[in-house]
């Protein structure tokens, strides 16, 4: 954004930072909607502490002329709604980028920031030259990095403008988000009409609030001078596009595949799915909040046994409580889908940060051998398709399916083309139509291990289900031969499932002819593809972790790089187990922050230049 001629913008990232609970999320949604309405492909990601109010949080909204799925380390405009934001994002604005800040905040000494933890304090103080630096020093630092400083006291502005258009002081203060967005857009020269429309929409249920915010926006536009050299313009019409995050996409995919029942116990970041369905009775889903995850999983199993399509969402701690019942579903051949939203572990860990640390756990969850499938989504689009596929696999093969998601996918919202719901057809599975009397629910005459099924309660018939080993009608057996036969029948599902899927569903590739192949799973795909643009590298996204695709031929003779969000390289271990190949380079991240395009690019370049170690840890992020 240097030079005086307004630069044509292809790709722009706006960041807003402030205290958790202060409304910056609303601001980001608004900003995203405004750009989306102007035809931009928008993505927004959210970082926040495990805290309800007060701790530092920020969101990035990236708008580009083409769809994107990852984020840059450095942003184009940072709107700092409080002093802590000023202090924390010192090196996060691009040279030539813009910092919008409150001059009052800059007058604070670092030690006066009420929510800054010791580690951050120490680091920032050191970065600002030691002592207890006043945040003016932060401004200098930004300036040194060639960041343009725009002093705008947003809170006073909100009060002033609000009152100017007739609101009382308290109401006026509540328009801060609108003011922040309006000011940013005004600086960037983006037309008011889009903001106006977005506000009307956002507050559709409260016309008075809408009116006030629109007035405030207009007034801010009047007051804030656009930057001379930047011009963020609308680039088209959004058409049918939708703006959606991974959680909602996953919920929608399940509904499209016939979801009827979801029991849940609240947990971050998995609760968004059931909460969303609860708020939308038109989904037709019976959603029940229960006493714990043990109840959740067993209730869903009961519903599934009675013929409902049942699914759960949870994250690591809750999943841990579900493992016993997963084996129960496996042994009793009960369809069940668990969307496992991975977050920073181990234990409670970093509950609001992202990770891919639950793969090993998911693969081995439950004692004993039983068939199950594990797949991982890479994107919002995948979340929809995979959730539906998981439901259908569970129904067709009568087994539990673990659908891996993560916090990054859950809380990243993107503009995309609408899902083609027509492509999803709920799979009825193998159903017995003429069941009468005692029914061999676990018949050994089972193609691909799948015995025809009727739900419990089917009139005129009957059978038993037990968590013990059992005979064909479901009574307990300890007979060694029958035991072997049942184990073998169940195990047969895995090969049947693999055949039914075909390799196309199990992985996808991008430039597989390259000599260096990056392998990834889950949400690393977006950042990898963008980071490797123009490099002589190919990519393999492994969609199914269990069963694992047959990759040996594909990987033969290649240099292999694995990229994942966990310390030990859980996928790398799986790869070694399944293919005998250890990756030449393992690139991991486990600080809970999403990988940035820059750091992944740099890691790839190091691989190509021969400078990379066998094990590289990425550490970017605020």
């Amino acid at each position: 954004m240097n030079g005086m001629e307004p630069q044509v913008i292809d790709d722009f990232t706006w960041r807003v930072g402030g205290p958790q609970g202060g409304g910056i999320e609303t601001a980001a949604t608004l900003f995203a909607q405004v750009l989306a309405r102007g035809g931009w492909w928008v993505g927004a990601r959210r970082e926040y502490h495990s805290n309800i109010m007060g701790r530092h949080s920020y969101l990035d909204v990236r708008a580009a002329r083409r769809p994107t799925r990852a984020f840059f380390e450095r942003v184009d405009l940072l709107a700092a709604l409080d002093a802590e934001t000023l202090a924390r994002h010192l090196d996060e604005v691009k040279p030539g980028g813009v910092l919008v800040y409150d001059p009052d905040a800059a007058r604070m000494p670092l030690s006066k920031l009420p929510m800054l933890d010791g580690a951050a304090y120490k680091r920032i103080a050191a970065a600002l030259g030691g002592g207890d630096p006043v945040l003016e020093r932060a401004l200098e630092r930004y300036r040194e990095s060639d960041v343009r400083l725009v002093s705008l006291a947003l809170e006073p502005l909100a009060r002033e403008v609000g009152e100017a258009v007739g609101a009382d002081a308290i109401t006026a203060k509540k328009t801060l988000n609108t003011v922040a967005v309006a000011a940013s857009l005004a600086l960037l020269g983006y037309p008011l009409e889009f903001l106006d429309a977005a506000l009307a929409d956002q507050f559709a249920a409260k016309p008075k609030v809408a009116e006030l915010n629109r007035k405030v926006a207009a007034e801010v536009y009047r007051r804030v001078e656009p930057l001379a050299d930047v011009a963020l313009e609308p680039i088209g019409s959004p058409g049918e596009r939708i703006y959606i995050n991974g959680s909602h996409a996953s919920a929608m995919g399940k509904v499209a595949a016939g979801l009827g029942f979801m029991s849940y116990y609240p947990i971050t970041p998995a609760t968004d799915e059931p909460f969303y369905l609860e708020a939308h009775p038109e989904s037709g889903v019976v959603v029940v909040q229960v006493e714990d995850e043990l109840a959740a999983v067993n209730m869903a199993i009961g519903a599934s046994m009675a013929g409902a399509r049942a699914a759960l969402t949870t994250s690591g701690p809750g999943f841990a409580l579900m493992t016993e019942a997963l084996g129960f579903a496996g042994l009793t051949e009960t369809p069940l889908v668990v969307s496992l939203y991975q977050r920073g572990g181990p234990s409670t860990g970093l509950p609001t940060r992202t990770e891919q640390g639950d793969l090993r756990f998911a693969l081995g969850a439950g004692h004993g051998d039983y068939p199950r499938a594990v797949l991982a989504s890479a994107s919002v689009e995948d979340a929809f398709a995979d959730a539906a596929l998981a439901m259908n696999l569970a129904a067709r093969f009568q087994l539990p399916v673990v659908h891996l998601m993560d916090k990054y996918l859950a809380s990243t919202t993107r503009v995309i083309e609408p899902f083609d719901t027509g492509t999803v057809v709920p799979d009825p599975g193998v159903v017995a139509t003429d069941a009468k009397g005692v029914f061999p629910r676990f018949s050994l005459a089972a193609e691909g291990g799948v015995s025809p099924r009727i739900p419990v309660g089917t009139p005129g018939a009957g059978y038993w289900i037990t968590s013990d080993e059992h005979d064909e009608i479901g009574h307990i057996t300890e007979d060694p031969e029958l035991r072997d036969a049942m184990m073998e029948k169940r195990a047969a599902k895995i090969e049947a499932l693999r055949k039914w899927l075909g390799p196309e569903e199990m992985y996808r590739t991008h430039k597989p002819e390259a000599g260096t192949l990056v392998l990834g799973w889950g949400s690393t795909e977006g950042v990898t593809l963008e980071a490797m643009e123009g490099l002589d590298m190919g990519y393999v996204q492994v969609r199914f972790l269990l069963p694992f695709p047959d990759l040996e031929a594909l990987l033969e003779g290649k240099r292999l790089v694995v990229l994942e969000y966990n310390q030990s390289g859980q996928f790398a271990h799986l790869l070694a187990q399944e293919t005998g190949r250890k990756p030449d380079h393992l690139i991991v991240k486990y600080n809970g922050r999403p990988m940035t395009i820059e750091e992944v690019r740099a890691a790839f370049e190091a691989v190509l230049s021969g400078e990379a170690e066998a094990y590289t840890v990425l550490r970017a992020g605020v």
Partner: protein
Amino acid sequence: MELKLADYKSDLAPDWCPGCGDYGILSALQTALYKLGIEPSRAVLVSGIGCSAKTVHYAATYGIHTLHGRPLPVAQGVKLANPELTVVAMAGDGDGMGIGAGHFVGVGRRNPDLLYLIFNNEVYGMTKGQASPTLELGAQPKSLARPNLQSKVNPLMLAFASGFTFIARGYAYDVKNLARLMQQGIEHKGLAMIDILQPCPTYNNLHTREWFAPRVYDINAEGYDPRVPREMSDAERAERMARFTLKATEWGERIPTGVFWHADLPSFEERLGTFLPGYPKTAPSTRPPGGESERARALMRGHRVAK
């Protein structure tokens, strides 16, 4: 075709110990279902793990023998998916009041239309006679290495605290009365629990058939009226609760059985119905297939960039 009592019996012979109270409970349950004329294929029995849990295999209904401690969640899942079914959940005292105690409290808050049976033998039968949560402090049945260090929990009191709307106690060897209690429990629209005193001749040598026989009596026969109206004055409420608490905690020379509490509160299915269009008719297992795509599209409309 007329249903016969035999239609409720499966082909499998029980493998309980001779003299086990479970025989009586099984028989009472079959009798209750038969007397109510419930089609066996429209009944689902759901148990946990334990000697008690084997019961479901001996009835010719649908039977689900779940995990230790989990009959209640599974039973609720069945019921909410298909509210047309008669669902009876059952648990050993270890299953229900130990590892499953959290679900006991949880289900009480929902009041689904279920009958829940506690097989109260004061021991963990299946794992060889350890103390169960209903065994008295200081008691030492022959299988224990030391006197019991924990106080007992009273299923009736816990059910009351948890919000159960029908609370009863039966005795495994009084099959006739037990069957009658089960009938009432099934007919009750909401959550019913029966605490069943169940002798375990193998491990519980303290509270045997002989010990119980002279002690158990029927409170309803003695005039105790368990019915609680929806609306009550403070004084009425006080009187009912006091009466319940007193009877529920009586234990010694006389041991009360019968119905202790019978209240009226919307079932969970009714509560869901206030919110989910058409439920229970539109319950996931009873509604006709189709419309999935339309439901997904309805959700999607809320996400349009330009509405």
